[in-house]
């Protein structure tokens, strides 16, 4: 497939692709069995974090029973409206740090993207890292109406993915259910003045009044951040897009909907290649959908997609144009003692994320987080229970639809800790090395800057201890679905319904 694009349109030099680049592809580690060596990767990799190069401070243990070298998480900032009346459009639907961690993007149900920028560290005030302040806000998607189906197309931003920075401008992909857009965010801090034919306010001068000529000069102006849509990738998805993922070649990306996955070139908007299609010939036979997809971080021909039946398929695009046959199928056999009518629903995978190293991938299903070694298909290497106390409440959660909530998960920069959200504005972190975990709450109460967060605990049954919360008191309307971890530092962004919380470790 890649060679076809050479015939479709010329590869113009652009901020995204260096001139005359062939489809740059690095050979994967053999059978994905060895971790990528630090030296691997070309010029595009310089800004990407690698597990082996993380600073020592990220190796510290998580706060568990307390003591010693545990990380202590502190409240840093909260963004968003204070009042409890949540406007539908303000509901945050995606959160993503860029590759350097300097920028933090959020998307909401109203189709807006808000980008925060980290302030440069104040060298004098070394006890705090830079704050995140609004850098740019723009309307990415508008509501549309599909006249054929008489249905609205929501403007809600499902995913944002940043491109690695190549020049002064920043680029990100944002998508709603049907359309992906490439946005360029650039700064303007000077403007030309002294035109001959125009006044300063833009009105054209009467040419007869021009008696002398001058050369316009650039003069400084207040910083302005502009966002402009550079590409619009539309009309390629019949079903709702749930994932976008940029390839490690930084030229192509995939978009996945419920039944199909398409491969795009960032330069080309009127063509995409369908690489996975699980739509049955007869829709009545439909029993499984695609829930998430992601490219391997280092191997540009490899991607995975997860399903509503709890399976993950790894595909190699070199094998065939249509990757309907997986190279690997990851599935854990069901525990017969836990079988119920809800078993399939809770096994449905809501998110899949490769580790930065590319050696592991993490999946999130309704009750747990699982870490898979790409070399072992028959079971995960680690399983972490997020809120096992909900297992006895599945029927109620089915009745109120909470069982269909799609929680995301994320890795820290060194792949040593994973994080995911839960209900009651709780979120959980699991340290893979120490096997300790912690539950924290995103709440405006008792949170002054640099206040250390108190670990929370849910009491599953029996007598509730002091400071514990019983399962029946949990607020199931307060769910944390979206979390993000700074690629290099211990800074996390946690989205409640309409607020964005930023926490960092105690410096």
């Amino acid at each position, binding site marked *: 497939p890649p060679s076809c694009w050479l015939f479709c349109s010329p590869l113009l030099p652009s901020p995204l692709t260096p001139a005359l680049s062939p489809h740059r592809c690095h050979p994967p580690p053999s059978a994905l069995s060895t971790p990528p060596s630090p030296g691997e990767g070309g010029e595009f990799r310089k800004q990407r974090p690698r597990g082996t190069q993380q600073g020592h401070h990220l190796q510290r243990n998580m706060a568990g029973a307390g003591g010693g070298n545990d990380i202590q998480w502190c409240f840093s900032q909260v963004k968003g409206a204070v009042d409890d009346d949540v406007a539908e459009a303000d509901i945050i639907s995606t959160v993503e740090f860029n590759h350097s961690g300097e920028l933090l993007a959020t998307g909401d149900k109203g189709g807006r993207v808000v980008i925060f920028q980290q302030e440069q560290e104040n060298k004098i005030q070394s006890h705090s890292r830079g704050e995140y302040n609004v850098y740019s806000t723009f309307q990415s998607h508008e509501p549309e109406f599909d006249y054929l*189906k*008489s249905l609205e197309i*929501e403007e809600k931003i499902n995913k944002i993915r940043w491109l690695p920075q190549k020049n002064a401008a920043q680029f990100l992909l944002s998508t709603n259910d049907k359309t992906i857009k490439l946005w360029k965010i650039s700064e303007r801090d000077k403007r030309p003045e002294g035109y001959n034919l125009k006044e300063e306010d833009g009105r054209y001068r009467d040419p007869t009044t021009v008696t002398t000529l001058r050369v316009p000069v650039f003069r400084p102006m207040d910083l302005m951040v502009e966002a402009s849509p550079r590409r619009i990738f539309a009309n390629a*998805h019949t079903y709702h897009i749930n994932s976008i993922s940029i390839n490690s070649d930084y030229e192509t990306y995939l978009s996945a909907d419920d039944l199909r996955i*398409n491969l795009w070139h960032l330069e080309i908007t009127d063509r995409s290649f369908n690489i996975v299609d699980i739509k049955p010939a007869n829709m009545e036979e439909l029993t499984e959908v695609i829930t998430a997809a992601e490219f391997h971080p280092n191997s540009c021909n490899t991607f995975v997609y997860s399903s509503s039946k709890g399976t993950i398929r790894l595909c190699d695009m070199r094998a065939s144009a249509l990757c309907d046959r997986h190279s690997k199928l990851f599935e854990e056999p069901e525990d017969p003692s836990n079988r119920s009518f809800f078993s399939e629903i809770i096994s449905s995978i809501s998110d899949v994320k490769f580790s930065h190293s590319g050696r592991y991938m993490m999946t999130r299903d309704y009750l747990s987080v699982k870490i898979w070694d790409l070399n072992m298909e028959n079971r995960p290497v680690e399983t972490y229970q997020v809120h096992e106390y909900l297992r006895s409440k599945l029927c109620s959660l089915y009745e109120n639809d909470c069982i269909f909530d799609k929680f995301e998960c994320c890795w820290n920069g060194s792949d040593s800790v994973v994080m995911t959200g839960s209900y009651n504005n709780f979120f959980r972190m699991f340290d893979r090395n120490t096997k300790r975990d912690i539950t924290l709450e995103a709440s405006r109460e008792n949170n002054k800057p640099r206040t250390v967060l108190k670990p929370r605990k849910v009491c599953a049954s029996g007598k509730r201890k002091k400071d514990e919360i019983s399962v029946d008191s949990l607020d199931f309307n307060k769910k944390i679905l979206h979390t993000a971890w700074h690629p290099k530092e211990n800074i996390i962004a946690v989205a409640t319904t309409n607020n964005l919380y930023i926490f960092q470790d105690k410096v």
Partner: protein
Amino acid sequence: MMFARGLKRKSAEEPEDVEGCSAGAQAMPSYSLQRQSLLDMSLVKLQLCHMLVEPNLCRSVLIANTVRQIQEEMTRDGTWRAVAPQAAGRAPLDRLVATDILCRSVREQEGECPAPDMGDGQPDLVPGLAVAPAAQAPRSPQSSLWEGDSSRESRGGFQKSLDQIFETLESKTSGSVEELFADVDSSYYDLDAVLTGMVGSTSSGPGSGLQAFASAATSPPSSSCRSDLGELDHAVEILVET
């Protein structure tokens, strides 16, 4: 709050509410009643997906799979059989067991009688109907949901109803507005047949594909062709601009 819909959830630790129940006079919700209630709830959920925005396909598939599982188990049990359709106005919600009853394990229920508690915490459900006699055969759930289908044999009718749900999901032909489009071949909604299926055929410009699509849309084949006319045939039809 446990429920987003405002149902007050009865606390699990209220054994003292059991008193007042005459022992043995009322049957306790059995596993099969629980299962039936779950089935009814699932079918209601599937029906409720006809909203202004396209329903979530993943959710619909998961619910439908749950319904199939229940159906399969009931078939194995031999409890799945045709039953006379109910009065037209009866909503399946009437048969829903209170959620906390439904979600309690069978073992827990053996010592309890939940009926007296129905009125308190479940204002939305019709009180007093939660506990059905154990001998009652499960009613075919689709009879009240798809009125006019009462003549269908329940098992085949059920499968057909499930299929209808997926046809509906694909083609959104329910309701009066959508009937305007009832004759339109559902494969029109499959844009891939028109667009990505044409990858590589660079002879025509980007606009001609859409024009061909539009011209084909003005003369839709009848709905009987829906299953006959495969996507490939349809795409070819558009390409040759018939």
